[in-house]
């Protein structure tokens, strides 16, 4: 039986403070919750087969091998290295493992030389650093705990103990950001040569305090200093140009990986692409453990309850608090293939998808191609650079062409 690569995600929903732009269900919880929470997560990992069975979730087959682990948050770097090691040990104890990539999300101010060394010793080989900006005014306004200097310190220690795979997160569109400050941030980032970069455009919605303030037209959280959409799109495009020029491969809408050695060749994929995150876009299986963690086993998607207290309480009774459990039908799978696949710059194999799902996108693709939003080259359908900032509109267009039957069903 062939081996099947599996990703494991572990959610640590704790933060020291909540950033103003954060629209995720994470937050500030009492450290007294850390221990019971860790116990609950270890319990979930240990007993996942029984728990899944009870919850109606397909139990992973024996041939699954965990090759990527991602500890995200929240701010998992708030946990002690011993606790992190415990989590990884729990995974090792329950799964066949062949670890290629083990990522820890860390905020710059939580990094120290000792912690860095301990992380490394625990088996973590990649750090995703929540940099967001190199501008102290922007960091302060966004409610971040770190400052520019903390980033340099953190990177120094991480490099010193031997981390050779760092990823930086940036946000385009923070309050007070200007073209000049953004270019400065990009220049500093490039100067530090992280192996991987993620850039997110600020999302304005009612789920974050900043978003709500912007929508309400208030000046709270410097909402009045948020750049407008056109400017944010401009920042993003500026980053695309600069990172490209600095030798980064733009492999996914928000993600870049450094080209080194043999992968300096423009056509070859960089070896620093995030192996774990690729699983999301490629619809490969991953199991999420912890409150609010999402999972996909190839057939079903589900998530755990997001409130850590509820989660702990359920696990204490050996029950998995699953919500949003759904079986992905053909139509939905096809939609996912499109909207996840097209986020990758390599696009999707049009003929293979059309054959697998017995559909044809010829008309929609022709229309979008004539508008310059997609291209088809060597059988792969891709978004053009012009479409990257408005990917949703293009995706909606393609998805609608399935539903409305505008794409002709291929006979047979």
């Amino acid at each position, binding site marked *: 039986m062939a081996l099947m690569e599996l*990703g494991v*995600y572990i*959610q640590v929903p704790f933060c020291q403070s909540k950033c103003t732009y954060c629209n*995720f269900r994470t937050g500030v919880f009492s450290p007294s919750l850390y221990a019971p929470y860790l116990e609950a997560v270890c319990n979930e990992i240990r007993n996942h087969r029984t728990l899944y069975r009870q919850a109606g979730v397909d139990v992973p087959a024996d041939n699954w091998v965990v090759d990527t682990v*991602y500890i*995200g948050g929240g701010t998992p770097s708030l946990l002690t290295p011993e606790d992190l090691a415990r989590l990884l040990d729990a995974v090792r104890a329950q799964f066949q493992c062949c670890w290629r990539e083990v990522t820890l999300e860390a905020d710059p101010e939580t990094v120290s030389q000792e912690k860095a060394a301990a992380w490394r010793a625990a088996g973590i080989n990649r750090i995703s650093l929540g940099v967001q900006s190199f501008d102290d005014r922007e960091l302060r306004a966004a409610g971040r705990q770190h400052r520019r200097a903390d980033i340099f310190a953190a990177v120094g220690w991480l490099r010193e103990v031997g981390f050779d795979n760092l990823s930086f997160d940036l946000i385009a569109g923070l309050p007070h950001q200007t073209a000049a400050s953004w270019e400065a941030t990009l220049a500093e980032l490039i100067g530090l040569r992280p192996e991987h970069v993620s*850039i*997110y*455009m600020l*999302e304005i919605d009612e789920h974050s305090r900043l978003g709500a303030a912007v929508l309400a037209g208030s000046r709270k959280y410097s909402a009045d200093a948020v750049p407008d*959409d*056109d400017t*944010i*799109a*401009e920042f*993003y495009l500026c980053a695309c140009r600069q990172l490209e020029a600095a030798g980064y491969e733009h492999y996914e*809408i*928000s993600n870049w990986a450094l080209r080194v050695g043999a992968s300096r060749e423009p056509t070859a994929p960089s070896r620093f692409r995030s192996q774990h*995150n690729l*699983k*999301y*876009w490629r619809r490969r299986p*991953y199991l*999420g453990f912890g409150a*609010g*963690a*999402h*999972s*996909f086993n190839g057939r079903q*998607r589900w*998530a755990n309850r997001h409130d850590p207290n509820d989660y702990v309480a359920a696990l204490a009774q050996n029950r998995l608090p699953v919500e*949003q459990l*759904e079986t992905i039908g053909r139509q*939905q799978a096809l*939609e*996912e293939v499109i*909207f*996840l696949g097209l*986020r990758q710059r390599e696009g999707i194999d049009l003929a293979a998808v059309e054959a697998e799902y017995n559909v044809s996108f010829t008309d929609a693709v022709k229309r979008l191609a004539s*508008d310059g*939003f997609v291209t088809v080259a060597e059988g792969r359908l891709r978004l053009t650079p012009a*479409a*990257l*900032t*408005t*990917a*949703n*509109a*293009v*995706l*909606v267009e393609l*998805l*609608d062409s399935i539903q409305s039957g505008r794409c002709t069903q291929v006979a047979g």
Partner: protein
Amino acid sequence: MDPQFIRNFCIIAHIDHGKSTLADRLLELTGALSQREMTAQVLDSMELERERGITIKAKSIRLHYRARDGHTYLLNLIDTPGHVDFSYEVSRALSACEGALLVVDASQGVEAQTVANAFLAAQHQLTLIPVINKIDLPAAQPELVKEQLEQVLALPAADALLISAKTGQGVEEVLEAVVRRIPPPAGDPDAPLRALIFDSWFDPYRGAVVQVRVQQGRLVPHLRIRLCATQQEYEVEELGAFTPKPVRLAELGPGEVGFVIANIKQVADARVGDTIVEAARPAEPLPGFQAIKPMVFAGLYPVQADQYEELRDALAKLQLNDAAFFYEPESSAALGFGFRCGFLGLLHMEIVQERLEREFSLDVVTTAPSVRYRITTTRGEVLEVDNPTRFPPPNTIAKIEEPIITAMIITSDDSVGAILQLCEEKRGVQKNFEYLSPKRVMLTYELPLNEIVLDFYDRLKSVSRGYASLDYQLAGWREADLVKLDILVGGEVVDALAMVCHRDQAYARGRELVGRLRRLIPRQMFEVPIQAAIGSRVIARETISALRKNVLAKCYGGDVTRKRKLLEKQREGKKRMKRVGRVDIPQEAFLAVLKVGSTDSEA
């Protein structure tokens, strides 16, 4: 029933002057309803009527009143619609009466509809009893109102009754006055039957229910009757009256008012104003019947194309109950398949729209209302066109005539200036300017109906801070230099956005409309030009710049569901829009035409 003890009357008033409250009070006083059964404003029973405080369909109620002279009288209170859109129905209801209570708000005084209704009542030779209502209000000025009644309507001040329908003060006197002042009906019970239909509505179990006033002869069950307008014959199945509960009756004699059920399938077969005669010895029909003609037209389209059938069924159901409502299928390049609908006026249109939404849960796009133009072509043909998209090419038009109304506006003197300006802007021609009192002015204007259907009423209310009142009636046709203004979105003519306006206004309206559309149409993936054009000449242009940012960046911890939901939300939003060419246009944009010509525009 001896006609000597019958009184048929109605209540006429300007909107909100307390007609319904007085009706409720009369019902309560005569014991037609116990206090317990009283819900506020019994006569306004439709949900919409109650919400808007407007009586849409007339009903009549039979009351028994023991007067101070010791006799018990049968009072038929005939309710009348309270809005100018339904003035024909008002006039028919008046024909069924011998007298009318003219209710005037003691703090508001005589308003446009007070005057219009009083004139109408006078034309029908009704005995008018002026009733000054709401005298309990601190702002009540009954003496001033009396003066106005004398001066404007030549009604003796001494005849006016002072009441408060709310507290009940003086209401008993109203009943006494009805008995003493309004003459009893006349009519020979043995003459051939003539009964006036003054209302009809649809009952899902019984078909059309017809309200009649017998002028002469007798209506009895099983009588074969004929409706003069359609020449259709029916057999009377049931007779009765509302008390307000329906009560079955064995006969309706001269002067009596009641309902007839005769297996009539739809209200269109029993038109208001028609006469019922006996099939065996048909009398001459009563004068004054007109088939009501719609004055305002608009396209109604389902937002989602698959709701077309549902919309058609809903319109058919509405028409069963509303003979004035007209519809026929039409199609629009922009909006797909829908219906061209005719209405009595804007309120009527809004009511239909709201009923579609509320009672049938349908989402509809309504195109800008239009009137019916009379176009003479260069070849001498005369066409009546109620849809701008059907206008013939400009070079084939010899002349265009548009419907004209006579509008009566009553206002306070401090807003006269603004109103004159509004009327001028709306191409009005002043016919009369009269001071009703040192502070009140009555203006008479001839105005094109198409200016009224746009936003005249809202603007009148706004420039007069709500004081001005309006009543109008159709006054014929007038030639005008009109042009069709086309709107192009993304280079394509959007037929549903076309409008007709005067040549002199075309430039300003074109600019304003494209400005509004620029704000209402969301940014698309590409640049979208919006143009206004007369024929092939573009007179205004704006550009919607291309959308720059629409991407969900994060897929945190593999949360694909969240991404999918966001995309689904965008897809839902798109579905509620209409696609023209490559451009998605939201419903509100189709209503933008309505707002053109308003001062509140920022364009």
